[in-house]
């Protein structure tokens, strides 16, 4: 063996022995509860704020802050104030997501992470392994299953063997006056996620009684088409007798929807158009998007900002206080706000003696109703969404509630 290799081999042997001795002492638990003192609970957040794609969820942080501020103003949770450290920016980068989780736990020593809202959740296994209660937007599979991770409106990723949320098909049926004899066209991006979306929604819409005339994941997923006529032409000929379907359902992101909807309308489509992402009053600020989305029915899984419930008034109040001025509301604020709210509610139920165990126990039998995301229940929320939603319709530059916020029973998904 040459000299360098020999030296390295010797070092290897020596150091591995050291490693063996110390590996066992690595996971000792401190006597006190991480992040909980007599009068404070330390909480952090992880949110995608600056990204190369320019997509930002940074208002999630504001929403969470607003909710924690109110909790503290009301005296905190069982006498403890929430010390919210603000959200770490993960930039939609898995490596940074994990690093942020590690920083919050190992450096800042938080008790919980809430909100966590990103398109990646590489830190999930670490947070769950370190027993860190985490609440966030359940659009990722990590929110469905792990013991310590909760979605603020449940787990939004259907799993085979689980259930499907029927909010969208049912409320669409309400708009169309029943699903019988009505045809829908489903369109999604050309990738695995799009395929999966098409599969689940086809089942959901069929179960609700719709005829699914077109269901394809065909739109190039990374570079948006500049021309949509190829897709609209096919859709408009897919309905019964070669005509247009009664509704076009897009399972895509906003920029795609704007292109598709504009093209549909230009080809003279008069039916119903709907998507689940474009509930963003910020979109109304620009004429082009306002026009493209006019008349579109948008699904949302929380109470619409247009509703006038006490909880919604409270939400608007809290946001205004936290921002220091009137700001246009968006769904990210709701994500942050309701993530914080779910954490607070469970922590309150856990009682004065707040530990991870008491938190988990409290969560295991947690339920309440009438919140901004409907009726919440754990551990049901680890397997399925809370199943509540509303449809709003954009009309003359304003969102109007088309189908009020309501909870629907899910169907099995096999």
């Amino acid at each position, binding site marked *: 063996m040459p000299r360098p*290799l020999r030296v390295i081999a010797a070092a290897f042997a020596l150091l*591995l022995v050291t490693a063996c001795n110390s590996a066992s002492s690595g996971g000792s638990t401190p006597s006190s509860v991480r992040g909980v003192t007599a009068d404070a609970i330390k909480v952090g957040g992880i949110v995608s704020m600056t990204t190369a794609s*320019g*997509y930002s969820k940074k208002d999630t942080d504001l929403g969470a802050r607003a909710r924690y501020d109110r909790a503290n103003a009301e005296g905190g949770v069982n006498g403890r104030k929430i010390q919210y450290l603000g959200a770490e920016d993960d930039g939609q980068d898995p490596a940074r997501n994990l*690093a942020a989780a*590690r920083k919050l736990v190992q450096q800042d020593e938080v008790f919980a992470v809430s909100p966590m809202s990103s398109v990646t959740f590489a830190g999930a296994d670490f947070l769950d392994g370190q027993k860190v209660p985490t609440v966030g937007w359940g659009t990722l599979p990590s929110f469905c299953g792990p013991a310590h991770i909760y979605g603020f409106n449940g787990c939004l990723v259907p799993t085979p063997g689980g259930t499907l949320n029927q909010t969208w098909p049912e409320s669409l049926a309400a708009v169309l006056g029943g699903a019988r004899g009505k045809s829908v066209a489903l369109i999604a991006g050309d990738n695995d996620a799009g395929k999966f979306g098409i599969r689940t929604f086809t089942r959901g819409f069929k179960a609700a009684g719709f005829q699914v005339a077109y269901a394809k994941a065909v739109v*190039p997923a990374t570079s948006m088409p*500049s021309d949509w006529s190829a897709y609209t032409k096919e859709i408009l000929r897919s309905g019964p007798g070669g005509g247009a379907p009664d509704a076009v359902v897009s399972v895509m992101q906003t920029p795609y929807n*704007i292109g598709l909807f504009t093209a549909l309308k230009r080809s003279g489509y008069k039916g119903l158009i709907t998507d689940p992402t474009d509930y963003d009053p910020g979109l109304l600020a620009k*004429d082009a998007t306002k026009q493209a989305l006019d008349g579109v029915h948008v699904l949302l899984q929380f109470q619409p900002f247009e509703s006038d419930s006490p909880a919604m008034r409270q939400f608007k109040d809290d946001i205004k206080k936290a921002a220091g001025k009137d700001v246009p509301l968006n769904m990210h604020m709701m994500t942050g706000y309701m993530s914080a709210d779910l954490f607070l509610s469970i922590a309150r139920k856990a009682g004065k003696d707040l530990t991870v165990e008491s938190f988990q126990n409290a969560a295991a039998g947690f339920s309440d109703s009438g919140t901004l995301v409907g009726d919440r229940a754990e551990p049901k929320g680890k397997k399925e969404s809370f199943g509540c939603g509303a449809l709003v319709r954009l009309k003359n530059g304003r969102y109007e509630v088309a189908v009020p916020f309501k909870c629907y029973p899910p169907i099995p998904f096999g």
Partner: protein
Amino acid sequence: MGDLLGFVLSGLVSGALYALLATGLVLSYSASGVFNFAHGSTAYLCALAYYELHSGFGWPAVPTALLLVCVVAPGLGGVLDRLMFRKLAGVGQTAQIVATIGLLVALPAAGRWTVELLERAGAPVLPAENQFGLPGVGPSPAVSWQPIDGVGVDSDQLITWITTAVAAAGLWALMRHTHLGLRLRAAVDDRTLTELRGISADRLSSMAWMLSSGLAGLAGVLATPLLGLSAHDYTLFLFVSATAAVLGRFVSVPLAFAGGLGLGVLQNLVAGYASFTDDITGFRTAVPFLVLFAGLVVLVRRQRAAGTAAADPPPVDYLAGKGWGRRWGGWVVAGALLGTAFYTVTTPFWSGILAQGLAIGLVFMSFTVVTGLGAMVSLAQATFVTGAALVAGLLMSHGWPFVAAAAAGTAAAALLGAVVALPALRLGGRSLALATLALAFLADQVLFQLGRLRNGDTGWEIPRPVAGPVDLADDRAMGLALVLLSAVLVALLTRLRGSRWGRAMLAVRSAPEAAAASGVSVVRTKLLLFTVSAGLAGLGGVLYASYNTRITATDFTAMTGLVWLAVVVAAGVRRPQFAVVAGLVFAVVPHLMTTYVTESAHLPVILFGLAGLALANDPDGYCAALPSRRAARRAATRAGDRSSAPPRARTADAYATGAGNTAPGTDGGPGETPSALRLSGVRAGYGGAPVLHGVDLAVRPGEVLVLLGPNGAGKSTLCRVAAGLLRPADGVVRVRGEDATRDTAVARARRGVRLAPEGRGVFPGLSIEANLALQLTEAEDRDAVYARFPGLAARRTVVAGSLSGGEQQLLALAPLLQRPPAVLVADEPSLGLAPRVVDEVFQLLTELRDHGTALLLVEEKAADALGAADTVAYLAQGEIAWSGPRSEVDRDRLAEAYLGTGVRR
């Protein structure tokens, strides 16, 4: 039919944008030799600036757009050219590719950071978030018409078409009908020859970069309503338009333009008609990359020096000859310290970060193999990482143990590597980089969309390995194990480099043909190189995924691979331990920055990107920068010592009896005309190889000095020194009595020294007329040439490359008669010409002498040239063996000079 027309028309919209970007790419590439991967980022910056100025500051649309396209974007191009591209033109292709990739990362971050800073300063900017339906130059929302049933057009599309058409027409007029355009085309055709004509190719390349940036800016502003503000989308858009640049073979602007238009249409047609692909997830998404890949493989001609060749010679080893302790001592100590630190000083958080850095360092080592050793740029390393980790995760979910799964994953990555290597067998340099990038995107969009492989967004769990009492779930143990593994891999890679196979690789890299001739299989070596590199990346990937404890298909995308490359090459790819440093820096620096410098996430990105700028100065990376500079300085000092020593051999003095013209001495003595060109004591060579050992020569106006010498005597080197292409290491060059030693080729040419280089001094891609117009701006001068050479007149629109050798030589020399230079250095003007043409050439040269031009004729064959000579000098082994008037030339002297016997003591 209506469908088809509609598809074609609207496909022309994105086609127009592709065309604009591709045109810019080709322009800047052909003028400077640097393929600008950051071209899309320039477009993004302009889109961002347009949005902020128009929507934020409320500036009017059209003037803002004009300001950006005509002033700001060209300015940015000019500045980047001055700071970066100009220097990059002189370094290897790898550094060029990486530097512009760094820029691709840094520019958008810089833009967003600027917006952030402006916002803090209270300027009325809007957040630089991606938004949709942004207003373009036209009305917002766009007005739409339906001229034919089923075919819709809106105002944004119309504006894009019209603007692109105007830009294309303007560009055509500029290139074809202005002197600037002519010079640009000349520089594209033959950069060195342009400089020899006294035209600064640097200034031309600046112009090309400014034009190119302007076009990118135009594309950016036009694309704002379509693409919004996603830097990512602009970059993807650029890669697609690179396809069009490939269709133009990187040099033809019209072809690239047409290719761009065609690409847009093709994409639309596929979307409209390729319903058979519905079952292949990701196929439609991948269409542009399929076209890019196919275009590269089919269209790119195998070039003699395509990237892997002498353009990228292996760097000099600054540690050559040092002992084991000097080479490795520091690294061993650093490794031991790091290993100990895990159990002593580092907090759990930092242990985790360091372990992460080490894990990514393993991946980075794969670049050391493919880029460091093989000088090939692979942008598909992230694909190998994802592939290996997915396979390992899949197998572990079936109960395989970690080691077996890791081995299988590594093997899968190696297999993928072999597939990716296939284009490498044909391509090199930027073409290879683009091909691997296309494959990386294809893998992301098709291969990793396979449900069985990716397992949805959940991915696969890859738990940390546990072997007996060693449990790597502890970050410290993981870190230590990674330190040791890195050490083993560094040792193995270092041995590999020194092995027979490593030498074969270096041979293939430096001169594939020569390597093949010496029995080294180029195909096998390259294939093996890619396979090893991919396997290494795969192994690193499995370990990195195991650090994360999970792999999902979107963890490491093709774009991640770009950032990695910039980070690792900035640190240096020549030695594997630099990759470890790069990994640690990549993991640690962002946290240090947020803790101590700024919360802004943009700054680390900018810094990582700008490390590419440093490559222009230190192509070997920052790890090697200090030692290699020191080594270079030492070498320079040594060389200096050598050259100040007394000359090894005598110069021509002793023989120069009675040859007052060529004797050394001061010019401008009483009553004496100064020499037109005088070299005194000139030493010159290439790298470490001296060629000229102190040459003295002088030519006076209206005189012909014929320099004779055998093959390899240093004649062409002397010509290069005379023309300013090669700066002498020592000695003085005077032109008309003035010291011109430090001149560039351009400055030398402007002093009136012309080199007619060996071979033909014409621009083969330009017409006869253009060749003449480049030197003779006045039409009557050109007419005079045509009058003298009716053969040229008859074919003035024919490209010079298609003329016979003799006609080309006449074309090269003819314009000089109209504007005689002070000095003409002609390197083998009669080489390969028919005797009748040789006579004509010498007659032309004699005529030039009569016009007062000083001629330095360099010939290997004495017979033809002697007739024209006033003075003769023999060059042998880099020294003037004899010089004197022609009358004193005799057979013996000639033989003596050719055999080199005369100079030997």
